Protein backbone atom coordinates (compact mmCIF):
# COMPACT_ATOMS: atom_id res chain seq x y z
CA UNK A 1 0.00 0.00 0.00
CA UNK A 2 1.51 3.29 -1.00
CA UNK A 3 -1.17 5.64 0.28
CA UNK A 4 -1.35 6.36 3.98
CA UNK A 5 -4.66 5.73 5.66
CA UNK A 6 -6.63 8.93 6.05
CA UNK A 7 -8.59 10.07 9.09
CA UNK A 8 -11.70 8.26 10.37
CA UNK A 9 -14.63 9.52 8.34
CA UNK A 10 -13.04 10.15 4.97
CA UNK A 11 -14.94 8.15 2.38
CA UNK A 12 -12.87 5.71 0.40
CA UNK A 13 -15.56 4.61 -2.03
CA UNK A 14 -18.15 6.93 -3.50
CA UNK A 15 -21.04 5.62 -5.55
CA UNK A 16 -22.84 8.58 -7.10
CA UNK A 17 -26.20 8.23 -8.81
CA UNK A 18 -25.20 5.05 -10.56
CA UNK A 19 -27.59 3.75 -13.18
CA UNK A 20 -27.06 0.61 -15.19
CA UNK A 21 -29.09 -0.39 -18.22
CA UNK A 22 -28.33 -3.58 -20.10
CA UNK A 23 -29.24 -3.42 -23.72
CA UNK A 24 -29.10 -6.35 -26.08
CA UNK A 25 -30.56 -6.15 -29.53
CA UNK A 26 -33.57 -3.86 -29.31
CA UNK A 27 -34.54 -4.61 -25.69
CA UNK A 28 -33.35 -2.65 -22.69
CA UNK A 29 -33.27 -3.82 -19.11
CA UNK A 30 -32.79 -1.34 -16.31
CA UNK A 31 -30.93 -3.25 -13.62
CA UNK A 32 -30.00 -0.30 -11.42
CA UNK A 33 -32.09 2.86 -11.29
CA UNK A 34 -30.23 5.12 -8.93
CA UNK A 35 -27.70 4.13 -6.30
CA UNK A 36 -25.97 6.69 -4.17
CA UNK A 37 -23.85 5.88 -1.13
CA UNK A 38 -20.42 6.26 0.41
CA UNK A 39 -18.16 3.81 2.20
CA UNK A 40 -15.70 5.14 4.78
CA UNK A 41 -12.12 4.02 4.94
CA UNK A 42 -11.92 0.92 7.13
CA UNK A 43 -15.65 0.33 7.17
CA UNK A 44 -17.46 -3.02 6.85
CA UNK A 45 -20.54 -2.44 4.70
CA UNK A 46 -23.04 -5.15 3.92
CA UNK A 47 -25.48 -4.91 1.03
CA UNK A 48 -28.67 -6.98 1.16
CA UNK A 49 -31.65 -7.13 -1.12
CA UNK A 50 -34.10 -9.60 -2.63
CA UNK A 51 -32.68 -11.95 -5.22
CA UNK A 52 -32.50 -10.34 -8.61
CA UNK A 53 -31.99 -6.92 -7.02
CA UNK A 54 -28.91 -6.25 -9.08
CA UNK A 55 -26.51 -6.79 -6.17
CA UNK A 56 -24.01 -8.58 -8.35
CA UNK A 57 -24.34 -5.94 -11.07
CA UNK A 58 -23.61 -3.26 -8.48
CA UNK A 59 -20.53 -5.07 -7.22
CA UNK A 60 -19.20 -5.48 -10.75
CA UNK A 61 -19.76 -1.77 -11.38
CA UNK A 62 -17.85 -0.90 -8.20
CA UNK A 63 -15.10 -3.31 -9.19
CA UNK A 64 -14.68 -1.71 -12.61
CA UNK A 65 -15.68 -4.93 -14.38
CA UNK A 66 -18.84 -3.34 -15.79
CA UNK A 67 -19.33 0.17 -17.14
CA UNK A 68 -22.05 2.26 -15.54
CA UNK A 69 -24.68 3.78 -17.82
CA UNK A 70 -24.66 7.06 -15.91
CA UNK A 71 -23.38 8.32 -12.58
CA UNK A 72 -19.94 7.45 -11.27
CA UNK A 73 -17.94 5.24 -8.96
CA UNK A 74 -14.80 6.67 -7.35
CA UNK A 75 -12.22 4.91 -5.24
CA UNK A 76 -9.97 7.17 -3.13
CA UNK A 77 -10.99 10.12 -5.28
CA UNK A 78 -10.15 8.49 -8.60
CA UNK A 79 -12.93 7.53 -10.96
CA UNK A 80 -13.29 3.79 -11.54
CA UNK A 81 -13.49 2.81 -15.21
CA UNK A 82 -11.54 -0.43 -15.08
CA UNK A 83 -10.44 -2.60 -12.13
CA UNK A 84 -8.55 -0.16 -9.91
CA UNK A 85 -5.35 -0.71 -7.98
CA UNK A 86 -5.67 -1.83 -4.38
CA UNK A 87 -8.91 -3.73 -4.85
CA UNK A 88 -9.61 -7.45 -4.63
CA UNK A 89 -12.82 -9.34 -5.34
CA UNK A 90 -13.93 -12.65 -3.82
CA UNK A 91 -16.55 -14.30 -6.00
CA UNK A 92 -19.30 -16.68 -5.00
CA UNK A 93 -18.12 -19.26 -7.53
CA UNK A 94 -14.79 -20.13 -5.88
CA UNK A 95 -14.46 -23.24 -8.02
CA UNK A 96 -14.40 -21.15 -11.17
CA UNK A 97 -12.44 -18.24 -9.75
CA UNK A 98 -9.45 -20.40 -8.78
CA UNK A 99 -7.27 -21.77 -11.56
CA UNK A 100 -7.41 -25.59 -11.48
CA UNK A 101 -4.03 -25.98 -13.19
CA UNK A 102 -2.25 -24.11 -10.39
CA UNK A 103 -1.60 -25.30 -6.84
CA UNK A 104 -2.99 -23.41 -3.86
CA UNK A 105 0.32 -21.58 -3.42
CA UNK A 106 0.56 -20.68 -7.12
CA UNK A 107 -3.03 -19.41 -7.14
CA UNK A 108 -2.32 -17.07 -4.24
CA UNK A 109 1.01 -16.01 -5.70
CA UNK A 110 -0.06 -15.22 -9.27
CA UNK A 111 -1.55 -11.73 -8.63
CA UNK A 112 1.57 -10.83 -6.63
CA UNK A 113 3.79 -11.84 -9.53
CA UNK A 114 1.69 -9.61 -11.76
CA UNK A 115 2.11 -6.79 -9.21
CA UNK A 116 5.89 -7.35 -9.50
CA UNK A 117 6.35 -8.08 -5.81
CA UNK A 118 9.92 -9.40 -5.31
CA UNK A 119 10.21 -13.17 -4.81
CA UNK A 120 11.20 -13.21 -1.13
CA UNK A 121 8.43 -10.79 -0.16
CA UNK A 122 6.03 -12.80 -2.29
CA UNK A 123 6.82 -16.03 -0.47
CA UNK A 124 6.30 -14.21 2.84
CA UNK A 125 2.94 -12.75 1.82
CA UNK A 126 1.71 -16.08 0.47
CA UNK A 127 2.62 -18.07 3.57
CA UNK A 128 1.23 -15.37 5.88
CA UNK A 129 -2.05 -15.30 3.95
CA UNK A 130 -2.36 -19.09 3.95
CA UNK A 131 -1.59 -19.10 7.65
CA UNK A 132 -4.25 -16.44 8.26
CA UNK A 133 -6.99 -18.49 6.58
CA UNK A 134 -5.86 -21.74 8.21
CA UNK A 135 -4.49 -23.40 5.08
CA UNK A 136 -0.76 -23.41 5.86
CA UNK A 137 -0.76 -27.21 5.57
CA UNK A 138 -1.92 -27.57 1.95
CA UNK A 139 0.12 -25.15 -0.19
CA UNK A 140 0.95 -27.80 -2.78
CA UNK A 141 -2.52 -29.26 -3.17
CA UNK A 142 -4.67 -28.35 -6.12
CA UNK A 143 -7.88 -26.42 -5.37
CA UNK A 144 -10.05 -29.25 -6.64
CA UNK A 145 -8.56 -31.61 -4.08
CA UNK A 146 -10.02 -29.42 -1.31
CA UNK A 147 -13.54 -29.06 0.06
CA UNK A 148 -15.72 -26.10 -0.99
CA UNK A 149 -15.08 -24.19 2.23
CA UNK A 150 -11.34 -24.67 1.89
CA UNK A 151 -11.45 -23.53 -1.73
CA UNK A 152 -13.16 -20.32 -0.69
CA UNK A 153 -10.43 -19.91 1.96
CA UNK A 154 -7.87 -20.10 -0.85
CA UNK A 155 -9.71 -17.35 -2.73
CA UNK A 156 -9.76 -15.25 0.46
CA UNK A 157 -6.05 -15.90 1.02
CA UNK A 158 -5.37 -14.75 -2.54
CA UNK A 159 -7.24 -11.50 -1.83
CA UNK A 160 -5.49 -11.00 1.55
CA UNK A 161 -2.00 -11.61 0.13
CA UNK A 162 -2.73 -8.95 -2.50
CA UNK A 163 -3.02 -6.39 0.34
CA UNK A 164 -6.00 -4.50 -1.04
CA UNK A 165 -7.37 -1.29 0.43
CA UNK A 166 -10.83 -2.49 -0.37
CA UNK A 167 -12.18 -6.01 -0.51
CA UNK A 168 -15.37 -6.72 -2.48
CA UNK A 169 -17.18 -9.94 -1.67
CA UNK A 170 -20.03 -11.19 -3.86
CA UNK A 171 -22.20 -13.61 -1.85
CA UNK A 172 -19.01 -15.47 -1.00
CA UNK A 173 -20.58 -18.07 1.28
CA UNK A 174 -23.80 -18.78 -0.61
CA UNK A 175 -22.47 -22.10 -1.88
CA UNK A 176 -21.08 -23.62 1.34
CA UNK A 177 -22.84 -25.49 4.16
CA UNK A 178 -24.08 -23.70 7.30
CA UNK A 179 -21.26 -24.91 9.56
CA UNK A 180 -18.53 -23.81 7.16
CA UNK A 181 -20.38 -20.61 6.54
CA UNK A 182 -20.25 -19.61 10.22
CA UNK A 183 -16.52 -20.38 10.33
CA UNK A 184 -15.86 -18.32 7.21
CA UNK A 185 -17.91 -15.40 8.55
CA UNK A 186 -15.77 -15.33 11.67
CA UNK A 187 -12.65 -15.61 9.52
CA UNK A 188 -13.63 -12.62 7.39
CA UNK A 189 -14.60 -10.61 10.44
CA UNK A 190 -11.29 -11.25 12.20
CA UNK A 191 -9.34 -10.50 9.01
CA UNK A 192 -11.19 -7.21 8.68
CA UNK A 193 -10.29 -6.31 12.26
CA UNK A 194 -6.64 -7.29 11.99
CA UNK A 195 -5.95 -5.94 8.48
CA UNK A 196 -8.03 -2.76 8.77
CA UNK A 197 -9.20 -3.26 5.22
CA UNK A 198 -12.45 -1.77 3.89
CA UNK A 199 -15.01 -4.46 3.06
CA UNK A 200 -18.08 -4.30 0.84
CA UNK A 201 -19.97 -7.54 1.37
CA UNK A 202 -22.95 -8.46 -0.81
CA UNK A 203 -25.31 -11.12 0.54
CA UNK A 204 -28.95 -12.18 0.42
CA UNK A 205 -28.71 -13.47 3.99
CA UNK A 206 -30.05 -10.84 6.43
CA UNK A 207 -28.52 -12.48 9.52
CA UNK A 208 -25.14 -12.63 7.88
CA UNK A 209 -25.35 -8.96 6.93
CA UNK A 210 -26.22 -7.88 10.50
CA UNK A 211 -23.63 -10.19 12.03
CA UNK A 212 -20.79 -8.86 9.88
CA UNK A 213 -21.63 -5.28 8.95
CA UNK A 214 -21.22 -1.99 10.71
CA UNK A 215 -23.87 -0.76 8.34
CA UNK A 216 -26.37 -2.58 6.16
CA UNK A 217 -27.59 -1.13 2.90
CA UNK A 218 -31.01 -2.53 1.96
CA UNK A 219 -31.67 -2.51 -1.77
CA UNK A 220 -35.05 -2.42 -3.48
CA UNK A 221 -36.22 -4.80 -6.13
CA UNK A 222 -34.93 -4.23 -9.66
CA UNK A 223 -34.62 -1.51 -11.00
CA UNK A 224 -32.57 -1.01 -7.88
CA UNK A 225 -32.27 1.91 -5.52
CA UNK A 226 -31.33 2.17 -1.84
CA UNK A 227 -34.35 1.48 0.37
CA UNK A 228 -32.64 2.18 3.64
CA UNK A 229 -29.23 2.59 5.19
CA UNK A 230 -29.32 0.76 8.54
CA UNK A 231 -26.51 1.33 11.05
CA UNK A 232 -25.64 -1.75 13.14
CA UNK A 233 -24.81 -0.61 16.68
CA UNK A 234 -23.67 -4.02 17.90
CA UNK A 235 -20.52 -4.47 20.04
CA UNK A 236 -17.45 -4.93 17.87
CA UNK A 237 -16.62 -8.32 19.36
CA UNK A 238 -18.80 -10.86 17.54
CA UNK A 239 -19.67 -14.35 18.62
CA UNK A 240 -21.84 -16.66 16.57
CA UNK A 241 -24.06 -17.63 19.54
CA UNK A 242 -23.99 -14.60 21.78
CA UNK A 243 -24.22 -11.89 19.12
CA UNK A 244 -27.01 -13.63 17.28
CA UNK A 245 -29.08 -14.01 20.48
CA UNK A 246 -28.83 -10.33 21.49
CA UNK A 247 -32.23 -8.58 21.59
CA UNK A 248 -30.79 -5.79 19.40
CA UNK A 249 -29.80 -8.38 16.82
CA UNK A 250 -33.32 -9.68 16.75
CA UNK A 251 -34.82 -6.21 16.36
CA UNK A 252 -32.49 -5.43 13.48
CA UNK A 253 -33.30 -8.73 11.84
CA UNK A 254 -37.04 -8.02 12.02
CA UNK A 255 -36.60 -4.50 10.72
CA UNK A 256 -34.48 -5.51 7.75
CA UNK A 257 -36.62 -8.54 7.06
CA UNK A 258 -39.69 -6.28 6.80
CA UNK A 259 -37.81 -3.94 4.48
CA UNK A 260 -36.76 -6.78 2.18
CA UNK A 261 -40.31 -8.15 2.16
CA UNK A 262 -41.65 -4.74 1.14
CA UNK A 263 -38.95 -4.53 -1.49
CA UNK A 264 -40.07 -7.87 -2.91
CA UNK A 265 -43.70 -6.82 -3.07
CA UNK A 266 -43.42 -3.31 -4.43
CA UNK A 267 -42.25 -3.06 -7.94
CA UNK A 268 -40.99 0.46 -8.34
CA UNK A 269 -41.75 1.76 -11.79
Amino acid at each position, binding site marked *: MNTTRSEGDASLLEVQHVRKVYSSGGTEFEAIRDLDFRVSDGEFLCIVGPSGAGKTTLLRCI*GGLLDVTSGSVSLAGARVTSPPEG*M*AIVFQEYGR*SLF*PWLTVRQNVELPLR*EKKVPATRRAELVSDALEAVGLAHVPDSYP*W*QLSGGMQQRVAIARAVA*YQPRILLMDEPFAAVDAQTRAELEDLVFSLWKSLQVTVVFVTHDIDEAIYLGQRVLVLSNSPTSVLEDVPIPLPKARDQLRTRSLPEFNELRQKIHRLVQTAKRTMIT
Partner: protein
Amino acid sequence: MTLPLAQRGSTRLRAGSARRRVAIRGLTGTLLFVLILEAVPRLGLVNPAYLPPFSEIMVALGAQAATPAFWTLLGQTVFGWFTGLIIALVAGIALGMFIGSLKWVREATHSTIEFLRPIPSVALIPLAVILFGTDMRSTLLLVVYATFWQVLIQVLSGVQDVDPIARETARSYRFRPLTQLRSLVWPTALPYVMTGVRLGASVALILEITGELVIGSPGIGKQIVLSQTAGQVATMYAFVIVAGMLGVAVNLGTRLLERRVLRWHTSIRRDQEGSP
Protein backbone atom coordinates in the same frame (compact mmCIF):
# COMPACT_ATOMS: atom_id res chain seq x y z
CA MET B 1 -16.12 -38.66 -1.98
CA THR B 2 -13.69 -40.02 0.60
CA LEU B 3 -14.15 -43.74 1.08
CA PRO B 4 -12.75 -45.50 4.13
CA LEU B 5 -9.20 -46.59 3.43
CA ALA B 6 -9.91 -50.33 3.41
CA GLN B 7 -12.76 -49.87 0.98
CA ARG B 8 -10.72 -47.60 -1.22
CA GLY B 9 -7.99 -50.23 -1.31
CA SER B 10 -10.38 -52.93 -2.37
CA THR B 11 -11.84 -50.66 -5.07
CA ARG B 12 -8.35 -50.20 -6.43
CA LEU B 13 -7.77 -53.96 -6.28
CA ARG B 14 -11.01 -54.60 -8.09
CA ALA B 15 -10.11 -52.00 -10.71
CA GLY B 16 -6.72 -53.71 -11.14
CA SER B 17 -8.17 -57.18 -11.66
CA ALA B 18 -10.78 -55.75 -14.05
CA ARG B 19 -8.00 -54.19 -16.07
CA ARG B 20 -6.16 -57.52 -16.16
CA ARG B 21 -9.32 -59.27 -17.32
CA VAL B 22 -9.75 -56.76 -20.15
CA ALA B 23 -6.12 -57.21 -21.17
CA ILE B 24 -6.47 -61.00 -21.23
CA ARG B 25 -9.61 -60.77 -23.34
CA GLY B 26 -7.89 -58.38 -25.74
CA LEU B 27 -4.96 -60.74 -26.12
CA THR B 28 -7.26 -63.70 -26.70
CA GLY B 29 -9.07 -61.75 -29.41
CA THR B 30 -5.83 -60.87 -31.18
CA LEU B 31 -4.62 -64.47 -31.04
CA LEU B 32 -7.89 -65.71 -32.52
CA PHE B 33 -7.66 -63.13 -35.31
CA VAL B 34 -4.11 -64.22 -36.13
CA LEU B 35 -5.21 -67.88 -36.15
CA ILE B 36 -8.01 -67.06 -38.62
CA LEU B 37 -5.56 -65.14 -40.83
CA GLU B 38 -3.30 -68.18 -40.80
CA ALA B 39 -6.08 -70.73 -41.37
CA VAL B 40 -8.14 -69.02 -44.07
CA PRO B 41 -5.48 -69.17 -46.86
CA ARG B 42 -4.19 -72.58 -45.73
CA LEU B 43 -7.69 -74.07 -45.90
CA GLY B 44 -8.03 -72.62 -49.39
CA LEU B 45 -10.94 -70.32 -48.44
CA VAL B 46 -9.13 -67.46 -50.18
CA ASN B 47 -6.38 -67.60 -52.76
CA PRO B 48 -3.01 -67.51 -50.91
CA ALA B 49 -1.71 -65.40 -53.79
CA TYR B 50 -3.85 -62.53 -52.51
CA LEU B 51 -3.65 -63.27 -48.82
CA PRO B 52 -0.65 -65.32 -47.74
CA PRO B 53 -0.83 -67.06 -44.35
CA PHE B 54 0.07 -64.81 -41.42
CA SER B 55 3.28 -66.70 -40.73
CA GLU B 56 4.56 -65.94 -44.23
CA ILE B 57 3.81 -62.24 -43.77
CA MET B 58 5.79 -62.35 -40.52
CA VAL B 59 8.70 -64.06 -42.24
CA ALA B 60 8.65 -61.35 -44.92
CA LEU B 61 8.53 -58.70 -42.22
CA GLY B 62 11.51 -60.33 -40.45
CA ALA B 63 13.45 -60.36 -43.71
CA GLN B 64 12.70 -56.69 -44.26
CA ALA B 65 13.61 -55.71 -40.71
CA ALA B 66 16.99 -57.32 -41.18
CA THR B 67 17.89 -54.88 -43.99
CA PRO B 68 19.15 -51.34 -43.23
CA ALA B 69 17.02 -50.05 -46.13
CA PHE B 70 13.86 -50.91 -44.19
CA TRP B 71 14.91 -48.73 -41.27
CA THR B 72 15.75 -45.87 -43.63
CA LEU B 73 12.25 -46.11 -45.10
CA LEU B 74 10.67 -46.23 -41.67
CA GLY B 75 12.77 -43.22 -40.66
CA GLN B 76 11.62 -41.29 -43.74
CA THR B 77 7.97 -41.95 -42.96
CA VAL B 78 8.34 -41.03 -39.29
CA PHE B 79 10.36 -37.93 -40.18
CA GLY B 80 7.78 -36.75 -42.72
CA TRP B 81 4.93 -37.41 -40.30
CA PHE B 82 6.63 -35.67 -37.39
CA THR B 83 7.81 -32.63 -39.39
CA GLY B 84 4.33 -32.14 -40.84
CA LEU B 85 2.73 -32.52 -37.42
CA ILE B 86 5.06 -30.01 -35.78
CA ILE B 87 4.60 -27.41 -38.54
CA ALA B 88 0.81 -27.83 -38.34
CA LEU B 89 0.88 -27.62 -34.54
CA VAL B 90 2.97 -24.47 -34.38
CA ALA B 91 0.95 -22.76 -37.10
CA GLY B 92 -2.41 -23.98 -35.75
CA ILE B 93 -1.69 -22.96 -32.17
CA ALA B 94 -0.22 -19.56 -33.04
CA LEU B 95 -2.98 -18.65 -35.50
CA GLY B 96 -5.68 -20.16 -33.30
CA MET B 97 -4.61 -18.15 -30.25
CA PHE B 98 -4.44 -15.00 -32.34
CA ILE B 99 -7.73 -15.43 -34.23
CA GLY B 100 -9.55 -16.72 -31.16
CA SER B 101 -8.48 -13.83 -28.93
CA LEU B 102 -9.79 -11.08 -31.17
CA LYS B 103 -13.51 -11.08 -31.86
CA TRP B 104 -13.39 -9.16 -35.12
CA VAL B 105 -10.61 -11.34 -36.57
CA ARG B 106 -12.61 -14.40 -35.58
CA GLU B 107 -15.70 -13.10 -37.31
CA ALA B 108 -13.75 -11.99 -40.38
CA THR B 109 -12.04 -15.36 -40.84
CA HIS B 110 -14.93 -17.64 -39.93
CA SER B 111 -16.41 -18.12 -43.41
CA THR B 112 -12.99 -18.58 -45.03
CA ILE B 113 -12.03 -21.23 -42.48
CA GLU B 114 -15.32 -23.04 -42.97
CA PHE B 115 -14.71 -23.05 -46.72
CA LEU B 116 -11.08 -24.22 -46.68
CA ARG B 117 -11.40 -26.77 -43.89
CA PRO B 118 -13.63 -29.34 -45.65
CA ILE B 119 -11.41 -29.52 -48.76
CA PRO B 120 -10.04 -33.07 -48.66
CA SER B 121 -6.29 -32.90 -48.47
CA VAL B 122 -5.92 -35.53 -51.20
CA ALA B 123 -7.64 -33.16 -53.63
CA LEU B 124 -4.45 -31.11 -53.41
CA ILE B 125 -2.24 -33.95 -54.70
CA PRO B 126 -2.09 -32.59 -58.28
CA LEU B 127 -1.15 -29.17 -56.95
CA ALA B 128 1.52 -30.68 -54.68
CA VAL B 129 3.02 -32.62 -57.59
CA ILE B 130 3.14 -29.50 -59.78
CA LEU B 131 4.90 -27.62 -56.99
CA PHE B 132 7.35 -30.22 -55.69
CA GLY B 133 7.22 -33.28 -57.97
CA THR B 134 7.60 -36.57 -56.14
CA ASP B 135 9.77 -34.97 -53.52
CA MET B 136 9.10 -35.46 -49.81
CA ARG B 137 7.83 -31.86 -49.72
CA SER B 138 4.77 -32.87 -51.80
CA THR B 139 3.63 -35.24 -49.10
CA LEU B 140 4.59 -32.74 -46.40
CA LEU B 141 2.22 -30.21 -47.94
CA LEU B 142 -0.67 -32.68 -47.71
CA VAL B 143 0.20 -33.63 -44.14
CA VAL B 144 0.45 -30.02 -43.00
CA TYR B 145 -2.76 -28.98 -44.74
CA ALA B 146 -4.87 -31.78 -43.29
CA THR B 147 -3.37 -31.58 -39.80
CA PHE B 148 -3.43 -27.80 -39.54
CA TRP B 149 -7.25 -27.63 -39.64
CA GLN B 150 -7.59 -30.30 -36.96
CA VAL B 151 -5.39 -28.25 -34.65
CA LEU B 152 -6.77 -24.83 -35.57
CA ILE B 153 -10.40 -25.77 -34.98
CA GLN B 154 -9.57 -27.23 -31.57
CA VAL B 155 -7.51 -24.21 -30.50
CA LEU B 156 -10.29 -21.87 -31.63
CA SER B 157 -12.85 -23.69 -29.48
CA GLY B 158 -10.39 -23.83 -26.60
CA VAL B 159 -9.76 -20.10 -26.59
CA GLN B 160 -13.54 -19.50 -26.53
CA ASP B 161 -13.93 -21.70 -23.47
CA VAL B 162 -12.39 -19.37 -20.88
CA ASP B 163 -14.67 -19.25 -17.83
CA PRO B 164 -16.24 -15.78 -17.42
CA ILE B 165 -15.59 -15.82 -13.65
CA ALA B 166 -11.94 -16.79 -14.19
CA ARG B 167 -11.70 -13.98 -16.75
CA GLU B 168 -13.18 -11.48 -14.27
CA THR B 169 -10.80 -12.72 -11.60
CA ALA B 170 -7.86 -12.10 -13.91
CA ARG B 171 -9.19 -8.66 -14.81
CA SER B 172 -9.87 -7.68 -11.20
CA TYR B 173 -6.24 -8.51 -10.32
CA ARG B 174 -5.20 -6.35 -13.26
CA PHE B 175 -3.48 -9.09 -15.26
CA ARG B 176 -1.93 -7.64 -18.39
CA PRO B 177 -3.22 -9.04 -21.72
CA LEU B 178 -0.09 -11.15 -22.19
CA THR B 179 -0.38 -12.58 -18.67
CA GLN B 180 -4.03 -13.40 -19.31
CA LEU B 181 -3.02 -15.18 -22.49
CA ARG B 182 -0.28 -17.15 -20.74
CA SER B 183 -1.85 -17.89 -17.37
CA LEU B 184 -5.52 -18.19 -18.28
CA VAL B 185 -6.27 -18.59 -22.00
CA TRP B 186 -3.46 -21.04 -22.78
CA PRO B 187 -4.18 -23.45 -19.87
CA THR B 188 -7.90 -23.30 -20.67
CA ALA B 189 -7.19 -24.14 -24.31
CA LEU B 190 -4.67 -26.86 -23.46
CA PRO B 191 -7.16 -29.76 -23.25
CA TYR B 192 -8.43 -28.75 -26.69
CA VAL B 193 -4.87 -28.43 -27.98
CA MET B 194 -4.18 -31.96 -26.74
CA THR B 195 -7.27 -33.24 -28.57
CA GLY B 196 -5.93 -31.43 -31.63
CA VAL B 197 -2.57 -33.14 -31.16
CA ARG B 198 -4.19 -36.55 -30.85
CA LEU B 199 -6.48 -36.15 -33.88
CA GLY B 200 -3.77 -34.32 -35.84
CA ALA B 201 -1.16 -37.01 -35.21
CA SER B 202 -3.48 -39.70 -36.62
CA VAL B 203 -4.54 -37.61 -39.61
CA ALA B 204 -0.91 -36.70 -40.29
CA LEU B 205 0.04 -40.39 -40.42
CA ILE B 206 -2.82 -41.21 -42.78
CA LEU B 207 -1.80 -38.40 -45.12
CA GLU B 208 1.87 -39.29 -44.89
CA ILE B 209 1.19 -42.88 -46.02
CA THR B 210 -1.32 -41.68 -48.65
CA GLY B 211 1.18 -39.19 -50.04
CA GLU B 212 3.91 -41.84 -50.29
CA LEU B 213 1.49 -44.27 -51.85
CA VAL B 214 -0.02 -41.96 -54.45
CA ILE B 215 2.73 -39.45 -55.15
CA GLY B 216 5.59 -41.88 -54.59
CA SER B 217 7.62 -39.85 -52.13
CA PRO B 218 10.00 -42.12 -50.20
CA GLY B 219 8.71 -44.12 -47.22
CA ILE B 220 6.66 -47.11 -46.09
CA GLY B 221 3.69 -46.14 -48.28
CA LYS B 222 5.72 -46.14 -51.47
CA GLN B 223 7.09 -49.56 -50.50
CA ILE B 224 3.56 -50.94 -50.30
CA VAL B 225 2.98 -50.04 -53.96
CA LEU B 226 6.43 -51.25 -55.04
CA SER B 227 5.94 -54.66 -53.36
CA GLN B 228 2.52 -54.95 -54.94
CA THR B 229 3.79 -54.26 -58.49
CA ALA B 230 6.68 -56.68 -57.91
CA GLY B 231 4.19 -59.37 -56.89
CA GLN B 232 5.71 -59.68 -53.40
CA VAL B 233 2.35 -59.98 -51.71
CA ALA B 234 3.68 -61.09 -48.33
CA THR B 235 6.09 -58.14 -48.24
CA MET B 236 3.29 -55.78 -49.17
CA TYR B 237 1.28 -57.02 -46.20
CA ALA B 238 4.35 -56.70 -44.02
CA PHE B 239 4.52 -52.98 -44.83
CA VAL B 240 0.80 -52.60 -44.26
CA ILE B 241 1.31 -54.09 -40.80
CA VAL B 242 4.20 -51.70 -40.15
CA ALA B 243 1.95 -48.75 -41.06
CA GLY B 244 -0.69 -50.11 -38.68
CA MET B 245 1.82 -50.46 -35.87
CA LEU B 246 2.94 -46.88 -36.44
CA GLY B 247 -0.68 -45.81 -35.99
CA VAL B 248 -0.97 -47.70 -32.73
CA ALA B 249 2.29 -46.19 -31.47
CA VAL B 250 1.16 -42.67 -32.40
CA ASN B 251 -2.13 -43.14 -30.56
CA LEU B 252 -0.48 -44.54 -27.43
CA GLY B 253 2.13 -41.79 -27.42
CA THR B 254 -0.39 -38.96 -27.68
CA ARG B 255 -2.60 -40.46 -24.97
CA LEU B 256 0.37 -40.72 -22.64
CA LEU B 257 1.32 -37.12 -23.38
CA GLU B 258 -2.27 -36.02 -22.72
CA ARG B 259 -2.31 -37.70 -19.32
CA ARG B 260 0.94 -36.05 -18.33
CA VAL B 261 0.04 -32.55 -19.49
CA LEU B 262 -3.54 -32.50 -18.20
CA ARG B 263 -3.06 -33.91 -14.67
CA TRP B 264 -5.33 -31.18 -13.34
CA HIS B 265 -8.12 -31.57 -15.87
CA THR B 266 -11.49 -33.13 -14.93
CA SER B 267 -11.12 -35.86 -17.54
CA ILE B 268 -7.85 -37.08 -16.00
CA ARG B 269 -8.03 -36.19 -12.31
CA ARG B 270 -11.07 -38.31 -11.38
CA ASP B 271 -9.02 -40.92 -9.56
CA GLN B 272 -7.16 -38.44 -7.33
CA GLU B 273 -10.04 -36.18 -6.38
CA GLY B 274 -10.95 -35.69 -2.73
CA SER B 275 -7.74 -37.14 -1.35
CA PRO B 276 -5.59 -34.20 -0.26
